[in-house]
């Protein structure tokens, strides 16, 4: 059985890609992902200018729940670095999705245009970063801001525009605004704004104090988000949040996702975890008598 599927018009050999921010900044990062067997690669979120990021620690494991708190600060090599990265990664011959974290509609467009010129398969607009002011969650919580940015980016490039949203109150409304403005798919969800304090040092641990929670702890939140948006709008969805096993991946797909991304599981288990997840999904489909991934997309939604 093969696990072929398409999402936002992108053909995938199987539904598992990395999540933005986990090994997507350099050629070597992508080489590591390619060797491990990911179906597509998502870059770290890019900004126009190079960014240094926050002071360390930039991530704190919360091992009890196989979770992680991070505040990297959107560290990335900027537009120049993006062009170089895309040119060098053509040799892998797999779809590459460029994540963008702009602070204005113009910045999103500028980066999207460079991404298209240098051969990106699609762009993923990060409208949900929980810890960088003015980039991310504030935009993604407002249907009108989402409509404006997605609209202008969609009309500026020909490659598919994917919109990544986070945990916001009016998620279905925001999702609907993104789709109406031209998004071909939605990535759900980003990490969830959170904090961890060391009670002996009596201080928040992260250099930035506040960060984003990812991993197992947010998996049920991701499943709910995907389910609700799928039930109301039936768009193409890439599910992300706490996928550590093939069961977790199948769960998101049954909630309505056509593909999944994994982040924190790569950190805890190493990039090779993708093979186990893919093999497990195959076995499950065979045992349960399904003929393709397509058949179980939204299978649990009523």
């Amino acid at each position, binding site marked *: 059985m093969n696990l072929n599927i398409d999402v936002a018009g992108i053909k995938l050999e199987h539904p598992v890609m990395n999540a933005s921010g986990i*090994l997507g900044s350099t050629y070597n990062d992508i080489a590591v992902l390619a060797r491990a067997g990911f179906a597509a690669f998502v870059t770290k979120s890019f900004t126009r200018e190079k960014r240094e990021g926050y002071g360390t620690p930039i991530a*704190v494991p919360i091992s009890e729940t196989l979770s992680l708190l991070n505040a990297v600060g959107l560290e990335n090599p900027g537009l120049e670095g993006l062009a170089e990265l895309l040119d060098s990664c053509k040799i892998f011959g797999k779809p590459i999705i460029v994540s963008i974290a702009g602070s204005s509609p113009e910045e999103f467009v500028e980066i999207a245009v460079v991404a298209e010129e240098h051969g990106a398969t699609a762009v993923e607009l990060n409208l949900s970063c929980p810890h960088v002011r003015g980039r991310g969650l504030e935009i993604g919580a407002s249907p009108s801001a989402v409509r404006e940015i997605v609209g202008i980016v969609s009309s500026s490039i020909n490659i598919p525009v994917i919109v990544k949203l986070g945990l916001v109150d009016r998620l279905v409304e925001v999702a609907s605004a993104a789709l109406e403005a031209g998004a071909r798919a939605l990535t759900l969800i980003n990490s969830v704004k959170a904090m961890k304090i060391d009670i002996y040092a009596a201080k928040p641990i992260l250099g930035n104090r506040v960060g984003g929670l990812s991993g197992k702890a947010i998996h049920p939140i991701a499943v709910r988000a995907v389910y609700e948006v799928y039930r109301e709008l039936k768009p193409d969805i890439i599910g992300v949040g706490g996928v550590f096993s093939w069961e977790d991946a199948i769960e998101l797909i049954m909630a309505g996702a056509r593909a999944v991304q994994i982040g924190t599981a790569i950190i805890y288990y*190493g990039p090779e975890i993708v093979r186990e997840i893919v093999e497990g999904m195959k076995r499950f489909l065979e045992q349960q008598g399904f003929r393709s991934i397509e058949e179980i997309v939204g299978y649990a939604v009523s």
Partner: protein
Amino acid sequence: MTSYAYVPAKLVKHVRKPNSPVAVLVYKALTTRFFPSLPGHFCMLWVPGYEAIPLSIAYQEGAHYYFIVKKRGPTTTKLVEDPPRYVGLIGPAGSPIPAPSSGGKILLLGGGVGIAPLIYFATTIASYVESVTLVYGVRSSNELVELDQIFNVNRFKNVELIIVVEEVCERAVFKGTLIDYITVKIGDRLEEYDRVYASGPQTFLCKLYEVFNRAGLLDRLVLVLETYVRCGLGFCGKCTIPGTSKLLCRDGPALSAQLLKNWFAKICV
């Protein structure tokens, strides 16, 4: 498979000679869910109010983690001079040093605080190898850590500790650099050692690579490298080992010299 954890820890020991740039610190985990480590593992040690920096675990005994720290910038200076009562440890980072498969004579070469992972390594392999020669080189005597006292290295009959100091020092068996020691004291007998592990400043590792390359013995040499480390958890890509596609905080810090041909060409030449 790694299982990372955050471990709050409390200072239980601070050993430093007057004005020494080097100190030994022992921190005890304040949780029962502390992580176990093997020699070669390091951790991100968070100094509240400062940063989190990569430090080799020099020894672990239950909840007690040992570190050897040398002053370089603000965080290491704080640790050496006035270590905080409480820190946070994130780890274990990296992969264990590949252990010799069986018996044999093992040579360990540690330059400065580079000795840290090799102490831990020596104490774990001593039980099953024929002999361990631990050569510890420092620039001046005030940098010298009393390994035999603090780590009780002498408890193993088959571990020999040799101290090499660049300036005159009564504790030293040999005056000079580690490379001088190898040239003068070991010379042609290099091949008597089944495996050689080295950790220390980059210039030292480069010279050692050359020595072993010339002798045709690269397959016996393992180098413990350093790169800039930011996340320590394998996601940021900052610690790529030059000339390889390996991440130091996942695949390193110890790598067989055979894999380091391009590293040598990039870094040492």
